Structure formats: structure tokens, C-alpha cells
């Protein structure tokens, strides 16, 4: 049961081969069995999940089902869930039970999906390894000595470890794509504004975007169909019409122009990873796509630009965690200053504090022009560069990360080395573009991801390319447990 794709589960539920209670129960069993080791979930409410599954079964029985009725889904613990703790991986929100659902959580509820639980993440989504979580690190199901990537590492590990058929994640600088790559699954970061941010705890408002994480492009399309769409309560959500992302999956790749930025294949890219990516590209070429060398000369500036803008926004987004209205409050504050200082000292972890400090500095009087304003100017150049590039090509492809998953603890004391993990993913967020990571091979039994980048609101094209690739390859069907994975 747990080896089925979302598409297969939908069919099985409709055909009454099994019930949602059975499917949900099977995943809950695996969570109980395996998650002690993976630590991919922060909160699981088995009773609530089974109750929701029973309701879904009634709907299925009554012929009243919607797209994902009865499908268990795990949500990253950054999405507010009515009545269920939403911690954001932080001590600060360890006691926080929202009285409301995030828009996307609501959309999954409406379609009848079953909330399996809330997945682990880097604290406030700040990190690339899921090691900064207050609830301890998540381990990579392919090799538990390795990190799963981050910040959506819990969602990636839950899907890779077959503890959930699919999950949601968020991506501010690569937080869906990098863990998808490290865990050998498929992840999509939609165009900025495609999916509502309401009820998603903000990290960097102008970069944050929620997206699906699953085994295949087809499953991602099924989830995106539920997630995408305008939300009048999120002013930055786009009114651009959505399409049924499943209908274009099979389109031919003949004549598709794929841009390969020379900057994404140069120094810093692990050689074996590069080999995997090149052979994946040859597969696309074999299907009729044309590979075109392109250049994104400002790529070198993406890390410094991102690490000004994201911390700047984060520094003020996180001001609301002050111990006054909800969340963690220090014991026995003597006065207001003490309340603020100790609450934030004790409630936030090191990486969060580091980014608040960097962001506060970048916005300070006298530094604003040199840092924040300059970074915004470069951000515009980066976006323009992509726009120019998309005049010549339909999508851009390259590696998701410079190399495969690294060992737990290997970079946790070296913030800059950790930041370099995102060198190929950050620009996509800065430019607001959709990006995907698709399993494309292995390096020493560690998964490698192919990154696909599309034009604004061209998610359908990315899913199409990824799906065609997955029709011809089986990387996405491999699961942890044997050398280079056994086929599902």
C-alpha cells in the first residue's frame, strides 16, 4: 500500500480496492515503526487522521469525492493547522495551536485529503539540513548518517521513507528543491504568487512560496491542482488563471529549447553529480529537446543578494514573536525589556538569531543603501537576466545542488558552507520563477536532483518535462533500503 503513488491511491480508493482508513492506517503504522529513526514528523495525531479518513470514505462511498479525497498528506509544520500545534520547528511556537487553517491546509481539507501530521523543518525554515529544528534533526532515509536537506527536510524524508505518499513544503531559497534532491523525490516550487501564503508562517515574504513534494511529477501536479489559485486574503497571490496541471503532462518535448547556464556547470559542481545531470539532459535531448548553452552572469551575486534580502525581511517578520500574545514566554520577566530579551533569547535558536542580526544590520540607518537597497537592485538585474534568457529558451536546466546529501553535523558549525548549498536554487526565488527538482541518478548511493526552471506561471511546462523524463527513467521509483534503492 505504502509504495503506491498518489495517482495509484486515487484510483484504488475510487475502485474500492482499499479504503482511506486502510491507507491512512498503513502510513500511520510506518510512521510508528520508522519515524523514531527518521524524525520526519513533529506532530502526528493518529486518531484525528483516522477520523478524517473515515469521513473521506463516506464521501467516496456517497460518490461525493473530490480530487484528493481520502489521500493522506503531510504538511510542513510551517502551515497553520486549526487545532493542531504549528511549531515552525521552534521552541518559540512549541505551545502554539492556531485557531485557523492556512489557505492551502483549508484547500486540502476541502478536497477531502487526510492530514497525516506535521513534518519537521529547520527552525522558521532557516537552514538547508533540517538540523536547526528545536525537535532534533531529521535523518535521510537513504542513509541515516546523512541530512535530508532543508528546510523542508521532514517532508522530503517522510515521502522518501514512504511514511507519506506526498507532502507540502515551502521554498524561500531552495527549501523544497534541495531536500527533494537529497532525498530522491520530486519537488516543485511554484511561481511566487501562485500559491497562497496566508497561514504560512512567514520567513521572507517576497521569496516564500509553498509547493508539493512527492514521488513523481504527476503526483506533484495532482497536489498543485489543489494548492494553486488566487487568494483574496494574500495581496501577493496572483489572479492569473490556473490550469489543470495533469492534462499537459504527456505533451511532446520535440522542439523544446532547454537552456544550460554555463555558470551552473562550472567550478563548485561535484563531478559525479555533473555526470548524472548531463546524462539526464541527454535523455531529454533524445526526446526531441534542444540543449542550448546560455549565461546568467550575475549568478555569483545570488548568495550575497539573497543573504541580505531574506534576513532583512525575516528580521521584521519575526518581531511578532515577543512573548506578549502567544508562543513562548520566558519565566518571571522583571520588566518589558527583560520579557522581550529573554523570550527571544530562549525561544529562538542560533541560526534564527544570526539571521535576525544580519537582517537588522542590513536595514539600519546608514547601512540600508549599501546593503538592502543595493541587494534589491541586483535582484532586479538577476530577474531581468532570466527574462532575457527565456527569450531564447523555454526552460532552464541544471543541477539542484552542487553535490549530494552531506553527513549530519558536517556543516552545522559553518554557516557559510551551509549557505553555499543553495547556490543553484536561490536565483529562482529572487526572480520569482517556478523551479523543480527531479530525481536524476545517484552518487555513491546518494540521490541527485535535476533542477528545471520555467517562465513565470509556466508550472505546466516544468511538470510536463519532468513527467516525460520520468516516463523514460526510473530514478523516481527507487526507494531506500538496498544499494541505490530498490524499485517500487
Amino acid at each position: 500500500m505504502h509504495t503506491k503513488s498518489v495517482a495509484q491511491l486515487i484510483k484504488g480508493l475510487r475502485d474500492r480496492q482499499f479504503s482511506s482508513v486502510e491507507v491512512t492506517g498503513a502510513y500511520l503504522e510506518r510512521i510508528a515503526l520508522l519515524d523514531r529513526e527518521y524524525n520526519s514528523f513533529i506532530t502526528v495525531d493518529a486518531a484525528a487522521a483516522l477520523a478524517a479518513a473515515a469521513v473521506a470514505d463516506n464521501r467516496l462511498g456517497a460518490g461525493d469525492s473530490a480530487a484528493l479525497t481520502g489521500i493522506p498528506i503531510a504538511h510542513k509544520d510551517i502551515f497553520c493547522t486549526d487545532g493542531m500545534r504549528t511549531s515552525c520547528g521552534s521552541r518559540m511556537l512549541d505551545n502554539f495551536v492556531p485557531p485557523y487553517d492556512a489557505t492551502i491546509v483549508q484547500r486540502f481539507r476541502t478536497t477531502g485529503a487526510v492530514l497525516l501530521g506535521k513534518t519537521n523543518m529547520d527552525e522558521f525554515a532557516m537552514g538547508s539540513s533540517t538540523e536547526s529544528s528545536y525537535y532534533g534533526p531529521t535523518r535521510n532515509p537513504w542513509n541515516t548518517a546523512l541530512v535530508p536537506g532543508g528546510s523542508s527536510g521532514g517532508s522530503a524524508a517522510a515521502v522518501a521513507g514512504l511514511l507519506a505518499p506526498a507532502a507540502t513544503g515551502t521554498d524561500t531559497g531552495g527549501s523544497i528543491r534541495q531536500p527533494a534532491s537529497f532525498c530522491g523525490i520530486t519537488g516543485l516550487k511554484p511561481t511566487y504568487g501562485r500559491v497562497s501564503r496566508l497561514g504560512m508562517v512567514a520567513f521572507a515574504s517576497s521569496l516564500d512560496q509553498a509547493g508539493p513534494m512527492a514521488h513523481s511529477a504527476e503526483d506533484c501536479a495532482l497536489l498543485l491542482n489543489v494548492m494553486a489559485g488566487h487568494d483574496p486574503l494574500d495581496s501577493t497571490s496572483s489572479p492569473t488563471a490556473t490550469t489543470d496541471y495533469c492534462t499537459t503532462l504527456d505533451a511532446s518535448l520535440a522542439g523544446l529549447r532547454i537552456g544550460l547556464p554555463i555558470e551552473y556547470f562550472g567550478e563548485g559542481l561535484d563531478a559525479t553529480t555533473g555526470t548524472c545531470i548531463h546524462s539526464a539532459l541527454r535523455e531529454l535531448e533524445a526526446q526531441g529537446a534542444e540543449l542550448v548553452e546560455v549565461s546568467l552572469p550575475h549568478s555569483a551575486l545570488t548568495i550575497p543578494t539573497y543573504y541580505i534580502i531574506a534576513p532583512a525581511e525575516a528580521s521584521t517578520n519575526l518581531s511578532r514573536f515577543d512573548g506578549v500574545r502567544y508562543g513562548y514566554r520566558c519565566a518571571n520577566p522583571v520588566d518589558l525589556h527583560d520579557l522581550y530579551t529573554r523570550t527571544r533569547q530562549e525561544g529562538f535558536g542560533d541560526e534564527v538569531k544570526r539571521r535576525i542580526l544580519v537582517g537588522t544590520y542590513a536595514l539600519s540607518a546608514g547601512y540600508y543603501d549599501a546593503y538592502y537597497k543595493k541587494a534589491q537592485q541586483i535582484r532586479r538585474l538577476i530577474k531581468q537576466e532570466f527574462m532575457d534568457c527565456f527569450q531564447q529558451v523555454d526552460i532552464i536546466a541544471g543541477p539542484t545542488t552542487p553535490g549530494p546529501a552531506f553527513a549530519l553535523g558536517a556543516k552545522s558549525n559553518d554557516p557559510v558552507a551551509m549557505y553555499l548549498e543553495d547556490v543553484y536554487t536561490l536565483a529562482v526565488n529572487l526572480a520569482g520563477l517556478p523551479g523543480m527538482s527531479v530525481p536524476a541518478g545517484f552518487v555513491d548511493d546518494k540521490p541527485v536532483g535535476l533542477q528545471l526552471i520555467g517562465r513565470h506561471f509556466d508550472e505546466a511546462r516544468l511538470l510536463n518535462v519532468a513527467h516525460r523524463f520520468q516516463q523514460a527513467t526510473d530514478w523516481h521509483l527507487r526507494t531506500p533500503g538496498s544499494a541505490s534503492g530498490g524499485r517500487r
Partner: protein
Amino acid sequence: MRWEPVIGLEVHLQLATQSKIFSGSATAFGAEPNTQASAVDLAMPGMLPVLNERAVCFAIRFGLGIGAQIGKRSVFDRKNYFYPDLPKGYQISQFEAPIVGKGNFEILLDDGSSRSIRITRAHLEEDAGKSLHEDFHGQTGIDLNRAGTPLLEIVSEPDIRSAAEAVAYLKALHSLVTYLGISDGNMAEGSMRCDVNISLRPAGSAALGTRAEIKNVNSFRFVEKAILHEIERQSEILEGGGEVAQETRLYDAERDETRPMRSKEVANDYRYFPEPDLLPVVIDDTYIETVRSSLPELPADKRRRFLEQYGLSTYDANVLSGSRTLADYFEAVAVDCGDAKIAANWVQVELLGQLNRDARTIENCPVAAAELGGLIRRILDNSISGKIAKQVFDAMWRGEGSADTIIEARALRQVSDSSALEAIVDEVIRANAAQVRQYLDADEPKRKKLVGFFVGQVMKLSKGQANPQMVNELLAKKLV
């Protein structure tokens, strides 16, 4: 040395929208604490602001009302600081690109003259909540009902030269925004709050002195007192050869003084930057024209029209155009009775006087304009004298009915029946033979004085109901 004050005002105007600027919560005043605070107002995790279009419309109305440039692309910014009644840890405001640019408007001084004051800018922002320090036994209570209430911060150029001008500016602003219907202008409920920037310079000098900013001045009277106090304080420093410190001071109404705010309260680097949760507000010309076409007649235009159309005095026109309700009331009375000057006089003297005595406003005046018009019509058709009319007005004020009802009920109609009046006049002449002799012996100027005695006697006998003009005519005929 004579010192000239240089004053600029920043007014925080509460806009009269039904809901808050970034959430759907109600803005009504006086609700139980925290009953008008939603998840957005409480800055719960993941909550996002959605701009209230009505607040934008109101800001544009103001901009057009002062002839200002409307920002075609205005941007919201975050102003960051920590305070318990500021739930997000930042206030959403506008910094570099405000919605209203430079403009100006006319203020009226007590001597009847007017001056033009330039407006630097006006921008939209959200209000903070309230910190309540009493009743919590050494702790502080937070009421977030007000958090997110839309404010328009209106910044003037330092064009104001005295406390009286500052008050005139605020009155003119109050009049303008209530005309525009964008604020209730209720000072007691904090709908207009004022910060004063003030410096002194030697009279005739063009250079600017060092300014102090006085916060927390929330009534016309306090603005006047705070400025007078500050002028005195600064001139004493300057006379003594000292230097005024550039600082923020707080006006303490109870002690009638300003004092420096603690440095902790002002030493903020607000780290302004564009609010990423909101898109820039883009306003096109069509929208601006739609708003423009919905503007009412503004105070200055109405004043001019009152002067020209009704021939009112400058003073009357100023007072009567001061509030839209008062102006409408006056015009209704004038139209009803057909005599604008008498209407102006009655509204100004009797009506405003009575309202003042009862501490009421024109908005809840017990006598409707048509009723007052009806009373004036009885003066004009000689049914009653002006003096009797005042009695009738008092009765109307007490709710005893229309002018006609009261006149009939109390038999106050003026006696204009010449035979009845003749009888009274004859009786007065009969009863005052000595005075009649004195009158007849007197020369013309003296007679004019003495005739008043006879008129008085006739009025007394007729209980004030004799038509004074007819009495004069009869006396002139009989005292020969």
C-alpha cells in the same frame, strides 16, 4: 529681542472607515477591550494584511481637497519598533512614496483675514493598540481594538507663526475633513491627534532655529497652551544665551508644561523598508476623476458663495461655513424663510448660543431648520416681534411644538388691529398727563427720547404684543 515662532504640525487623522485598514475588524469606538481584534490585528503567525480600498479613497479625497498631487504609485513600508501594543513589531506606514504629495489650504484668522498653509505630504498608516497602565496592579493591559485603525498622517510645512494660527489650522483641517466625510473629527475620541514641531528665530530672520517636537497634544486648547508654553520656554533659553536642544517633548495637560521624553522612548532606528506583504498602490487618472466628481462643495468655496449669494458679512460667512452640518442648516433656514441675513443672525446668535449653553452640537439640535424658518417667517410677516420670537424660540427648544402652535397657545400674536391699539395709546396718554406736557414743551431732539417712554408704556399694557411700528405712528399722530 523679538522672537518669531516657526511651527509645523503633524496631524494623525482617524479615517471613518467601517473596518480597519488591513483587516475586516470593525473600527467602532468604545467596544469592550480586544473584541474588535482579529487574527490579523493580533499579528498571529501567517496572517497577512489586505488593504482597505475605502481608506485609499478617503486619502485621495483629502489630497484632492487640498489640491495636492496624488501619488500614482504609492508604497507601504514597515516602520520597525518593539512595543506591546504594536503586535507585529512594526507599523505599516508610508515612507518614501506617500499617497498624497504637496498641497495647500486656507486658514481663517480671528481678525477675518486668511492665510495659505502648505502641506508637505499625507500618508496612510495603521494605528497601534492601547497600553492601559491603570487597573492592572503594576502590570500593563493591552487593548488591540484600535490596532489597525486607518490613519492619515498630514504633515504641514513650517508655515505657522503663532499658537492662534496653529489652532486656526486645526480648525480649518477639522472643517475640511468633516466636509469631505473622511473622518468624524472627534477629538475627544482621538480622531485627530497632533504633534507640534516648533522653533524660534529672531523676528525678520530667514534662518531656522533648532526645533523641539511636542507629542501628545490632542485638543485645540491644548495645542494652543502647549505652543504658548513652548514659546516661553524656548525664548527664555535663547534670551539667556543658551541653545534649544533638538528633542522630543511631551505635553502634560495637567501641569500645563512640556517635558523631554525619556531617550528610550525616542532613540529608535525604525529600519523602514518596503512592506513585502502588500503590492504598491497604483492609482490611475480615471479613478482620481471619479473621486473628484464625488467631492462636496468645500469650506472655502462655500464661504465665498455665502458672501456672494447671500450678501453675508465675512464674519457670518466664516462661522456659518465652518461645519458642513451648520452650513446646511443655515441654508435650509434661509431658503425656508426667504431672508438669508435674518436667518444668518438667528442661527449665529440664538441657535449657536443655545447649543453652546446646553453643550450640544448642531448635529443633535432639537430645533429643525424648517422649524426655525417657520419662526422667522412669523417675524417677517409681523405676527410677532423679534422680542416675542425669542420667547417662542425658547419654548421650541424645550420641545413645545412649532412656532405657530406656541404663538397660538400663548396668544402671542402681535396686536396690529389699529382700533385696539388706538384704545391703548389713548389710555397711556390719559394716564400720563405730566409726561405728555413735558413732551409737548420739548424741542425735537428731546421729543425723540421722550417718545420711547410712551412706546414702553404701550408695550407694557399690551404685554409686548403691540406692533411697534404702528404704535410709533399712532403716538406721532396723537401727541400733538
